[in-house]
């Protein structure tokens, strides 16, 4: 619009000057006025318009001269025409130069408008002279509203430091940056990162300050939230009653990667059969940080030098680290278990733990282990178990007592009759005249009473060896597992290591779950007791296999002192015992139970220690009724 108007004005002015030049009788340098045409055209800011105006001015000057004076030199008029041409030329050159400078500035202004940062320029009085688009959008004032206002008044700038100090830095170094707060037109406070630079003119005098501001309100809020969250988690870490251990498992990861697994073997079974590997991993797993609750748990005053790796904390007989490693290698995010840790004074603390393995982003150096001391719970449990055991013992003793009383009564009556009849017979015989009739009947009664006693003994034996009443199909692995769980505590107390190896795809056996479980429990407890007083390794290995189609064998091998040959012969006899407080009924009943199930219970104890009990149970054949 403006461009067109300037063009039309320039064209009309040029026409007027031309007509005036040729028609006016005035003798003067009218053509000098073409300078005005060039300046009008320059107002469009376009290089082409300037050149067109210049060309028109020069052409019309020459045309008017020729029209008036002909193509001849005419002294003074020629001189005037030349001056006019020179004036137009000079004006054109200046206009072109000015146009170029303006174009550069406009391009720069456009560039500044593209920025997301709020950019403005203020002069030495602090009045705004430039205000970019981002400033318009973020602060809310338009260019027109902002221009000429004092920046600090408009934005109500809040400085973190005294303004004088900032000005001093600005004038000494030519720049300043820092964080400020500005208020927008809508009244909101925003936090900005501000960078200032002094602007100089060609003479080096300060003419203003160039200021760019980045809105960091959200970034600041996010950072504040992060700091808050960090503090909150630190507080949880420090104040929690749950022990927290931060561990670095990256070395374990590297070591696990080097394990060369045999075909088909799983990592967990490999670790289970290579305790040395697990022991090395324990030493490789570093403790980075522990919280006060954990320090209290292990009885340490501060993060002591003694607790650098997991090996320093876990008890020697720990069975949980191997499975934890397997879970870690599998990529599980979580693993939990129950174990014992060692206090600085050497005492053991029973704990339950949960390990959270970090996600890939977090790295293996940030494995968190949460640990809860269950000493009290364990003590309570132990007390309950103790009470239960005492109760069971009392019940057994009571049953035995009743049984003994009833046996006593049943057997004592005929015994008394035998003795009394015998004595009577003797007296009848020793009379001066022996009464053989009486002797005969007394001895007859001796015989029948003796028979009666043996019948009673037979009846009692039959009562004690009742055949199983509840038969069901039993999974051998589950049978062993449940039995092992029942006596886990006793084994741990005797520091016996338990290893269970069950062959895959074992067929089920048929029998009374409780009775067979008791046999296995009995054998485990015996093995534990045999090893309890024994120096050296205490390992109980329970294997389940199928030596033939017809049977399944559960073998319990211990590393105890073994059984002497003379004891071996009588081991299963009722009332035979090598224990000071033993009844000598356990193994007798175990064998009876095995036989009642159609199986066998045998023992071998090779010289050099260790006993192996073998419980063999028949496998129901296909088609056979269960």
């Amino acid at each position: 619009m403006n461009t067109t108007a300037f063009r039309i004005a320039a064209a009309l002015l040029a026409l007027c000057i031309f007509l005036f030049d040729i028609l006016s009788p005035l003798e003067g340098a009218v053509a000098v006025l073409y300078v005005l045409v060039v300046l009008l055209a320059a107002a469009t800011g376009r290089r082409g318009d300037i050149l067109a105006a210049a060309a028109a001015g020069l052409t019309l000057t020459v045309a008017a001269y020729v029209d008036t004076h002909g193509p001849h030199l005419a002294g003074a008029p020629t001189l005037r025409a030349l001056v006019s041409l020179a004036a137009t030329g000079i004006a054109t050159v200046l206009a072109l130069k000015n146009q170029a400078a303006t174009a550069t500035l406009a391009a720069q202004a456009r560039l500044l408008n593209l920025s997301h940062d709020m950019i403005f320029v203020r002069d030495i009085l602090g009045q705004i002279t430039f205000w970019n688009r981002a400033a318009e959008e973020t602060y809310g004032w338009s260019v027109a509203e902002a221009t000429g206002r004092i920046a600090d008044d408009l934005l109500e700038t809040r400085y973190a430091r005294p303004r004088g100090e900032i000005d001093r830095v600005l004038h000494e170094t030519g720049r300043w940056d820092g964080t400020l707060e500005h208020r927008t037109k809508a009244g909101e406070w925003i936090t900005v990162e501000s960078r200032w630079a002094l602007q100089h003119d060609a003479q080096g005098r300060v003419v203003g300050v160039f200021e760019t501001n980045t809105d960091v309100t959200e970034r600041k809020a996010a950072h504040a939230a992060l700091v808050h969250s960090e503090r909150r988690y630190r507080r949880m870490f420090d104040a929690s009653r749950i022990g927290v251990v931060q561990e670095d498992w990256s070395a374990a990861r590297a070591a696990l990667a080097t394990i060369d697994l045999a075909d088909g073997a799983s990592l967990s079974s490999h670790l289970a059969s290579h305790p040395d590997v697990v022991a090395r991993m324990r030493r490789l797993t570093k403790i980075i940080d522990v919280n006060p609750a954990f320090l209290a748990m292990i009885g340490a005053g501060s993060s002591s030098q003694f607790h650098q790796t997991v090996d320093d904390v876990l008890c020697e007989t720990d069975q949980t680290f191997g499975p934890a490693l397997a879970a870690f290698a599998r990529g599980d995010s979580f693993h939990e278990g129950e174990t014992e840790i060692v206090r600085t004074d050497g005492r053991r603390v029973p704990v339950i733990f949960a390990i959270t393995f970090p996600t890939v982003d977090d790295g293996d150096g940030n494995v968190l282990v949460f640990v809860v001391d269950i000493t009290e719970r364990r003590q309570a449990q132990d007390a309950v178990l103790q009470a239960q055991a005492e109760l069971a013992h009392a019940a057994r003793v009571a049953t035995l007592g009743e049984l003994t009383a009833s046996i006593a009564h049943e057997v004592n009556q005929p015994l008394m009759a035998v003795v009394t009849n015998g004595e009577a017979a003797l007296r009848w015989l020793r009379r001066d005249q022996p009464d053989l009739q009486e002797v005969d009947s007394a001895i007859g009664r001796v015989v029948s009473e003796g028979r009666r006693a043996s019948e009673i003994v037979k009846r009692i034996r039959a009562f004690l060896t009742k055949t199983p009443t509840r038969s069901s199909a039993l999974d051998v692995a589950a049978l062993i597992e449940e039995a092992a769980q029942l006596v886990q505590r006793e084994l741990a107390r005797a520091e016996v290591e338990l290893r269970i190896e069950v062959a895959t795809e074992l067929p089920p056996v048929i029998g009374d779950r409780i009775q067979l479980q008791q046999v296995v429990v009995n054998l485990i407890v015996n093995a534990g007791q045999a090893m309890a007083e024994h120096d050296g390794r205490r390992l109980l290995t329970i294997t389940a296999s199928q030596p033939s189609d017809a049977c399944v064998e559960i073998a319990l091998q211990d590393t105890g002192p073994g059984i002497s040959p003379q004891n071996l012969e009588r081991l299963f006899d009722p009332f035979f015992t090598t224990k000071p407080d033993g009844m000598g009924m356990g193994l007798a009943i175990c064998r009876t139970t095995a036989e009642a199930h159609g199986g066998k219970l045998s023992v071998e104890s090779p010289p050099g220690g260790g006993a192996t009990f073998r419980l063999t149970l028949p496998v129901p054949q296909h088609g056979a009724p269960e």
Partner: protein
Amino acid sequence: MQHIPTVAIVDDDDGVRSSLTSLIRSLGYKARSYGSAPQFLADRETDDPDCMIADIQMPEMTGDELQAALIAAGRRFPMIFMTAFPTAITRERVMAAGACAFLDKPAEPDTIARHLAAALARGRD
């Protein structure tokens, strides 16, 4: 003519009862046997025995209950008790009520003979 003491035997066990009867007769006494306490109490045709040997554990009525019943009825003669379940409480009660002896089963025949002789001697006083 010399008085031959009569001994009553009260026991529910046939074997014990018949063997005791034989023993007592071999010792030169007369014997009367009863399979239960009520049976003894019901025998009204004979006089009180010179001594009684009774079992404690019997169905219907126990030996110490029999003792109490006899005392209550004013029938006093020497009594010897035997049991396969000797308990201190029963022993005390029976002895306090005036029994001559409290023997564990199986009892030695010599012991029985000795206590019987002592009881009969006491009964004659």
